[in-house]
């Protein structure tokens, strides 16, 4: 079980801010493929990987970063602070 959190329009398209996911995905990319296959709202939120960023346990990461040992995956659009 892994916590998956969403922000901004990713959160809005998926319709929830956080969920627990039962997965054996090896990488963030695998997890995204798995969720996209599950329901349309995920497929729509994750359609364009170039407009997504990810963090693992609150550190920025890559799509091919391994999920082993990770408790929290965050998926969100490019940040717009400042």
């Amino acid at each position: 079980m892994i916590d998956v959190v969403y922000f901004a329009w990713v959160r809005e398209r998926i319709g929830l801010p956080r969920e627990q996911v039962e997965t054996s995905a090896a990488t963030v990319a695998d997890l995204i493929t798995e969720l996209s296959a599950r329901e349309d709202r995920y497929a729509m939120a994750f359609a364009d990987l170039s407009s997504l960023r990810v963090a693992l346990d609150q550190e920025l990461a890559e799509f091919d970063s391994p999920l082993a040992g990770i408790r929290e995956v965050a998926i969100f659009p490019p940040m717009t602070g400042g």
Partner: protein
Amino acid sequence: MRITIQSEPFDMGAESNAFATSAKGAGAIVTFTGITRDNAQGDLQVMEIEHYPGMTERALTDIAETAMQRWQLDDCLIIHRYGRLAPQDPIMMVATASRHRADAFAAAEYLMDYLKSRAPFWKKEIAKSGASWVAARDVDEAALKRW
């Protein structure tokens, strides 16, 4: 070094003065303040800022610590708001103190560039004409390359 993430408004002048007073010995103080701008249509009602509690503190602390190591700074400050902001409200500020103005300027620009594209904040403009997420700009991502 102080990192503050808050929903409440802040007074940039009072924060600047407090920062300058605590950084005694520094000859140069640079501040940057970001103010909520109206949208192109001129009908912005609220700017809503979402953030990632936990990661935000971490990301800003990392950015500030890197700046403290990379330049000769006496102190640095980051304040960033989240929640609902009105047009003309200050969104955030950074301040740097150094003996040398070049270091104070460079560090403030570095803090801003990283804060724009590497700190987990997202802005949504809520206007009469509709609501929309502010898109990241290529020029902000490109700005990171110089460091």
